[in-house]
Every structure is written in C-alpha cells, then in structure tokens.
C-alpha cells in the first residue's frame, strides 16, 4: 500500500470521478439541498461524516459475510447499516454537539436515502479495496460531494437573478447549470498521479 496509491484514490474520488458530476450518485440531495450556501455546506459535512463511518462499518461486516458465503445479503446488510448509522449519528450529535445538530436539521435523516453513501460502500466491495483504501475512498468521496454541492449552490444563488424562458423555471435550469459544471469537471478526466 503506497502513498501514491492512496493519493490517486483521493484525487479520483474528489475530481476525476466525482461522485455527483461524473458518476451520478447522490443527485437527489444535490438538487434538493443546494438552494442556499449554508445548508449545502452542512449537508456536505454530514455526508463526509456518514460516508467515512459507513465505509468502516460495511468493510467490517463484509469481512463476516464473505467467509459465510452470504454475499447476496450485502445490499440488505449495507442498507441496514447505513440506516442505523444515520440514526446513531443523529442521536450522538443531539447529545454531544447540539449546535451542529440543529444546523443540519432534517438533512441528517435524508442521508439514509442518499445513493452516494450506498454507492461508496458497494464500489468499495466491487473494487476490492483494503481497509485503509475503503476509508480513504469514503472520506474523499464525501469531500467530492461537498465540493460539487458547494460549487453548485453558489451558481444557483446567482441563478435567481438570471433571465431564462418560463418553462425552465425551477428544476430544468438547475439541471442545465449542473450540466455545465459537469462539463467543467470533464477537464479533470485523465488526471493521474505518477
């Protein structure tokens, strides 16, 4: 396990294969929570946290499932882990850091249905990542989510003053601008660490 290996996983997850803009994972919260900068930031941080924890726990559970030949239960087990993890994080934050808990509000429970979180653990299994690689992929995948959603929120705040055809009001114009950001991210494709 080399340092460059980890670095290339990190670079891939944040820029080259950004979860939202290149792999299309987690579009729902990306569209739903990006109207304002501060909520986007809160959601991004919560997602990093949950994705890191989910990678750790799902890796451990997968260690139990594989020797028992229960791989077909992976999806079910991972969903349950993520759901209970989100619940746990919610209770923990409520007790330990109430200010952060209130700032995140309803976005915390919503993370359960964020496909980026389930996506990262499934990809960890598919790519046969080791424990450290899985955790790095989880954290940097979350950072990629944060980068994309914050960029998109700042674009969207300006969209309110833009003029466009009436039919594009609301969602369509947001999708088109997300497409333009995706176009910008295409510039990172082929970026590698030697």
């Amino acid at each position: 396990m080399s340092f460059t290996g980890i670095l290339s996983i990190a670079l891939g997850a944040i820029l080259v294969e950004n979860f939202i803009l290149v792999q299309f994972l987690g579009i729902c919260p990306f569209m739903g929570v990006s109207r304002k900068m501060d909520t986007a930031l809160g959601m991004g941080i919560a997602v990093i946290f949950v994705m890191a924890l989910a990678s750790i726990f799902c890796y451990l559970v997968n260690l139990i499932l594989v020797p028992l030949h229960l791989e077909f239960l992976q999806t079910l087990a991972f969903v349950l882990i993520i759901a209970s993890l989100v619940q746990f994080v919610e209770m923990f934050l409520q007790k330990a850091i109430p200010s952060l808990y209130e700032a995140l509000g309803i976005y915390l429970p919503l993370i359960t249905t964020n496909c980026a979180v389930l996506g990262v653990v499934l990809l960890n299994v598919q790519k046969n990542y080791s424990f450290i690689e899985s955790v790095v992929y989880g954290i940097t995948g979350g950072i990629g989510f944060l980068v994309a959603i914050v960029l998109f929120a700042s674009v969207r705040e300006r969209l309110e003053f833009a003029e466009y055809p009436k039919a594009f009001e609301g969602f369509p114009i947001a999708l088109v601008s997300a497409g333009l950001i995706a176009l910008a991210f295409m510039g990172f494709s082929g970026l590698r660490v030697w």
Partner: protein
Amino acid sequence: MNVKEQLKEGLVTKNPVLVQLLGMCSVLAITTSLFNGIGMGICVTVILTCCNVVISLLRKVIPQKIRIAAYVVIIAGFVTIVDLCVQAFLPALSESLGVFIPLIVVNCIILGRAEAFASRNTVGVSALDGIFQGVGYTLVLIAMCIIRELLGAGTFGAGLLNGGDGIRIFPAEYGAMLMIMPFGGFLTLGFLIALMQHFLRRGKEKAEEKERSVK
C-alpha cells in the same frame, strides 16, 4: 379512482421523473443506450410493483414509527432477488448497469410510492400504481436513451437491434460525444422537464380559459 385516471397520472400528470422529480440518479447515469434504458426500466417496474403489493398487504401490520425501516428491508429484499436474476440470466445487462441495480434500493421512486400510495391503498390499486408509475419511469428512460444515443453515437437501439450494433442513422464521427458524457445527461433531462412544464402549464391555462368563458 379509476384505472384510466391512474394511468394518466403515472404516465403524464404525475410522471415520477418529469413531474415528481424522483429517481434522478439512475435516469441520468444509465441512459446511454436503449438496451440499458429498457433493462433498467423493467427492473424498476418489477421491483416497484412487488414492493407496492407487499407493503399494501402489510400496511396495517407495520407500526407507524418504524415503517421506513420496514419498507427499506422489503425493498432491499426484492432488489436482491432482481439483482441475482439479472446476473444469472442477463449477464450483459448486469455488467453495463453495474452498481446501479443494487442502488435501486435507495431509488426515491420506490420509497416515495410506498410512503405516498401503497401504505394508504388496497392491494389491487397499489399494484396498478406500481405498474403505471414504473411504465412512466421507463418511458422517460427510453426517451432519454433515444435522444442521447442518436446525438452522441448516431445509432438507434445499440445492444438490442441489428445484432447488437444498432441501426446507424449517421456516421459515428459526426456524433457529439458530449451527449454520452454526464453533461449530456443533465442537459437532456433539463430540456425534457422544461418541455413537460411547458405543456402542463399550457394545458392548465387552456382549462382556466375554458372555465372563464363558461362563466
């Protein structure tokens, strides 16, 4: 509610993707060829119908407080069944859809219909709702696939027709590769939703005008 009305809701007025804006991830990610689109559409329709039936049967048994967890387990069960079937019988589809088949678990269409429809209605109506919403989703997928594939690669029905090569409409070198890239997905869906909003608004305005002239 009669069947015809339900059909219209699923396909047009409450189309899961274009109007309710659910299940975006899969719509954007896998609509690069007609084969993927139809395969994914059938998978989601089957899972949605089965989940709707089971959840509607259990709607009086599941306690209110843990209903989401219960729904997720039911959905994950059906997704696993479909995933294994696809892997066994259609390995090519399983390969090209990849991680997006297990990800149907967190597709908001299924949880959304469970919460908004199946948990409040009888079995028959819920099953119909599952089928119609699934077909509405599939139609959007097919539309996206046709547009993106045609503009991006210049073919129609790759993986399905003409021995897997698809029917060539124009030479590949004139295709805009961008439409196959993520950018094309966002753009196509944006325009489709805009079109839908345009027609829905025009329909509403016409109905209002009619009302006014009657008065």
